């Protein structure tokens, strides 16, 4: 499945909605599409440990040299960072927005001038750790940073995991919203025809 990021470049920031059971697969599809377009991708993960994502990306034939990670769940879930992951920045907890903000700023500065894209996986999981108002402020902070350094950003969220108010706020921060399940249903319909 190829995701339509044809407007990526004109539009910089996307909110991508997906069902929870397809979230991991959709994450991989997005990375596949982005690396295929020559983007250097930074994955911020609060849902799946980066080691799991790496294995998934390798299995899907994605060049891991083009992907780096800011992992906010592994240390929190496993108690320590696994060895041999030098390309990954570990944050103590998804609720530690200060460290997360610093890590994002440093990574974006290091990628200045390059064709970079940030993938946030996922906004819905963040709701477990911080109140919706703080999430909204944090996403606004990231989108402002991205616009300043002229980088792209994709925010993954579970379609039914956001309340209408938060969804409306997030929609105003991004340039475009993509519903992955609608895309998938559309592609299935085409196959049936």
């Amino acid at each position, binding site marked *: 499945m190829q995701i339509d990021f044809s407007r990526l470049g004109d539009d910089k920031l996307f909110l991508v909605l997906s069902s929870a*059971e397809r979230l991991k697969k959709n994450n991989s599809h997005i990375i596949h599409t982005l690396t295929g377009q020559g983007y250097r991708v930074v994955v911020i993960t609060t849902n799946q440990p980066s080691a799991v994502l790496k294995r998934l990306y390798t299995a899907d034939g994605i060049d891991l040299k083009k992907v780096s990670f800011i992992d906010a769940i592994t240390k929190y879930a496993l108690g320590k960072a696994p060895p041999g992951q030098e390309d990954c920045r570990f944050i103590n907890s998804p609720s530690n927005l200060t460290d997360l903000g610093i890590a994002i700023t440093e990574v974006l500065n290091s990628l200045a001038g390059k064709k970079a894209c940030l993938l946030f996986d996922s906004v819905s999981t963040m709701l477990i750790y911080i109140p919706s108002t703080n999430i909204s402020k944090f996403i606004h902070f990231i989108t402002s940073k991205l616009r300043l350094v002229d980088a792209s950003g994709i925010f993954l969220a579970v379609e039914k995991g956001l309340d209408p108010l*938060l969804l409306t706020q997030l929609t105003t921060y991004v340039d475009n919203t993509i519903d992955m399940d609608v895309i998938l249903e559309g592609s299935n319909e085409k196959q049936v025809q």
Partner: protein
Amino acid sequence: MQRGENTPYTVHQLWVLIILGGICIGLEVGVHLFLRTAIGYTHIFYILLVLAAVWYYKKALWVATALVAATFLSSLAVGDFNWATLLRASMFLLVTYIVARISEERDRARSDILAQKEAIEKKHFALIGYLSEVTLRIKNPVKILRDNLLAIRMEFDGNGPDLDSVKMELSAQLAHTEQILANFQELNQQVIEEQSEIPDAYREFLTR
């Protein structure tokens, strides 16, 4: 609308009082001074005094005082100043004062009710906000957790899952579960702190 605001309605009220005041003075001069009778026409003064008291409360006593002065002057000029003049003048002041007090009390009670209604609505909105945050931070994360577990379960349907990955994924889901439980306890704590009528046994159960 606040009293004292210069709205078209208050301007309209002022004009009504000015016109009525003019009519009253006209009657005092025309009927009392020229027709030499003090009977009947003063009843019309009460329209002016009651309206002034309803709209401007005790400030209407100034209007009443002005009418009393006009009555005294015309009575002195005509030469019929007696106990009836004094009674009429004191009735002007008394009626104005009573209507002003009643109007003041009525409007104060109305503004109290409005303030109470506003406070209840505010509390209601806060409750709705609280409930939607509870839904967002408890119900939806549980759904996400269920779907994540379903996704992990689906990995077993393929050629056989990568057990190390599954272990790490389950650890992440466990961490999510612990945080959801902590959120739930925090929310319960807030509820029982607000609700003093919850019995101790239930209070202990909620925070366990």
